[in-house]
């Protein structure tokens, strides 16, 4: 049974309060043996306590699956990218290095990559993912489009990301301010051309590699 087509996963990093409820809820699940599949990242730990939850975005062209040499990562027909299949995963770390969102993590002890699969055991039966059920500020929200329109009148979801020349559409939506004209999030743009307003050089970004490899020119 696929995930209901009218149920969407929305992430609103603005609303995240860093309470780690999602991490706790995720690690309580038996399907991944007490390891949390959700990462709570700090936006800029030196400057602010702002955190953002990182779940798998479930791309339409999953880079983790593209680079897997063992054919272990599969995508179901409803667009959920599953975690690595245990008999196949060879713990080579390719997916960990390749994922632009930094979602897969290697479990060295088990020699297995485990990643978020949107709680497929729950969502395929019509329930909500664990993290979305416990998030107190609803930074992680799982529901219909109408619900999110009603609850967040000042935001709108987008699911298009640009990595160099590659465009990725994700199943998980990011909430952005309604007034923005952006149709997609260009990651390289954000990295390499920070706002002109701040003339201060960001020490972190200055060291970052700003030339992404060209996948293909069409």
């Amino acid at each position: 049974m696929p995930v209901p087509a009218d149920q969407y996963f929305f992430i609103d990093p603005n609303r995240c309060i860093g309470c780690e409820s999602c991490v706790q809820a995720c690690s309580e699940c038996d399907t991944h043996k007490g390891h949390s599949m959700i990462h709570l990242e700090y936006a800029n730990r030196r400057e602010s306590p702002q955190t953002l939850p990182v779940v798998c975005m479930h791309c339409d062209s999953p880079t983790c699956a593209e680079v897997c040499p063992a054919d272990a990562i599969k995508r179901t027909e409803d667009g959920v990218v599953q975690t690595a299949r245990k008999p196949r995963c060879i713990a080579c770390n390719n997916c960990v290095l390749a994922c632009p969102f930094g979602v897969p993590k290697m479990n060295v002890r088990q020699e297995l990559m485990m990643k978020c699969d949107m709680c497929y055991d729950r969502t395929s039966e019509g329930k909500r993912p664990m993290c979305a059920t416990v998030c107190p500020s609803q930074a992680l929200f799982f529901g219909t489009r109408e619900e999110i329109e009603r609850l967040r009148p000042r935001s709108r979801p987008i699911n298009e990301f640009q990595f160099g020349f590659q465009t990725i559409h994700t199943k998980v939506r990011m909430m952005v301010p309604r007034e923005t004209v952006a149709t997609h999030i260009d990651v390289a743009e954000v990295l390499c051309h920070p706002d002109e307003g701040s003339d201060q050089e960001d020490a972190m970004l200055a060291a970052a590699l700003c030339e992404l490899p060209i996948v293909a020119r069409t």
Partner: protein
Amino acid sequence: MEDNNVQVTNFPDGRPQRVQPRWRQDFPIDLEADEYGARRDFTKFMVLTSLAFACGQLWIALLSTFRGRSPREQRIAAVDDVQVGQAVGFHFPTQRDPCLLIRQSENEFLAYSSLCTHLMCPVRPELEQGRLHCPCHEGYFDLGTGRPIAGPPRRPLPRIQLRIDRGIVYATGVEERAS
């Protein structure tokens, strides 16, 4: 915002499938198209199962070559050592097979395996009533024939074939009976 459940997986360069390299068809990302592993698993299962069957057949063949031999004749007791109406225990054909030798009359000897055919408890002779009694579940066997007459046992006790030669009782074989 388009459909939530995108059916097909897109390729990194965004071009359709027919212009993609061949290896992408061999290693599909869609779960339904991933039959390669299933086929491999099925083959593995078939090979291992046939191997298990073959090993089982070999094992059975080995067992049956050793099982078919008739046991060696064994001395049980002297005729004079057993009184009429007395039972003597012995082991035949191996040390792990307890049996009973019963002297019914002056020259009539009977011997049965003393393992009850229900759950292998040792049976006890009750010669006055003409029966063998298994105390575990109250099973009774007829003394003359070894057939069950009461309780849970359904099969008769295996009978030990005897030969009396110059005052010595020998056990020569086991007569297995189906019912």
